[in-house]
């Protein structure tokens, strides 16, 4: 349990834990050959994508609730700016494309390049990370989605 008035002990504990964890982490790190960017993009890992979604997208988005951004369940195959009870930017309301793997990839890479004037500024620079997040979103969309 957290004891707010024992910061010194907590910091000391953190340092000890760091030292104890550093050695086995270094010794046990597997050697992995990274897949090519194209292969990685084609085969996103939805499990890793869920972790990325929670940590990168979760400040503003949820699957089932409109927050800073619209809800994401069934985003695949959905027309842009089509969640009925979410207030989109004028820039997005003017567009007519449908969300699929390709449009989501371009959106996550640079939203302002795909839709100038959008209020979403968050970018995911790694193609693998984008592929994983997209795989997660596909898993939470209707099976018939593209």
């Amino acid at each position: 349990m957290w004891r707010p008035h024992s910061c010194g002990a907590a910091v000391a504990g953190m340092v000890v834990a760091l030292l104890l964890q550093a050695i086995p982490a270094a010794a046990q790190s597997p050697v992995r050959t990274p897949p090519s960017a194209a292969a990685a993009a084609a085969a996103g890992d939805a499990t890793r994508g869920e972790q990325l979604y929670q940590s990168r997208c979760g400040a503003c988005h949820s699957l089932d609730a409109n927050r800073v951004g619209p809800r994401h369940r069934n985003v695949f195959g959905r027309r842009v700016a089509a969640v009925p009870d979410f207030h989109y930017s004028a820039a997005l309301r003017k567009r007519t494309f449908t969300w699929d793997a390709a449009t989501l990839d371009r959106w996550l890479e640079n939203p302002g390049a795909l839709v100038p004037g959008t209020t979403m500024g968050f970018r995911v620079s790694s193609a693998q990370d984008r592929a994983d997040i997209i795989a997660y979103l596909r898993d939470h969309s209707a099976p018939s989605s593209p």
Partner: protein
Amino acid sequence: MSVVGKDLQMRRQLVRGSATVLTAAGITALLGARGAALAQKRTGNAGQDVGVLNAAIALEHEGIAAYTIAAGSGLLQPAVVKIGVTFRGHHQRHRDELIKVVTALGGKPAAAKSDAEYATALNAAALKNQTDVLRLALKLERGAANAYLGLIPSLATADRHQLVARMAGDEAFHAAILGNALGDPIPTDGLMFGA
């Protein structure tokens, strides 16, 4: 000069520019496309940044509401409430700084929703104990740190980059405290925020 001061100065320069010879069209005529690009780089893409920073204001509104809801939930120990209220104050400072910049750029700052709306969106009814509350707070703070780092490339000026980077630092600080309170292990790898 502060971020707001520079943005105010930039805005005044933009307003004055409409009545002088050196309009964007004039620059283009004199220096060609490169001159216009340089002028754009100097002033920043104010319209785009207003939208992005307004999304950040909306994020801060939600964070402030989350701590208010948590403080009134009856689920937290008094010492934890005190720390949560302090964190809420940090988010209020973020909100206020962002509002200053958006206003200076000629934008209308995003308005807050009601706490009841935030409670619904965050599924606050599902929170049953202090650990649940801390886990939600950690998720929001970690997400906020990542959000600020991830939008830096979309902002046009170094002053705005620095402002949101400073706020990302605050969010990471909050996340570290909350992670420690929950007994989460320290991440083994560096570069634990952003990408």
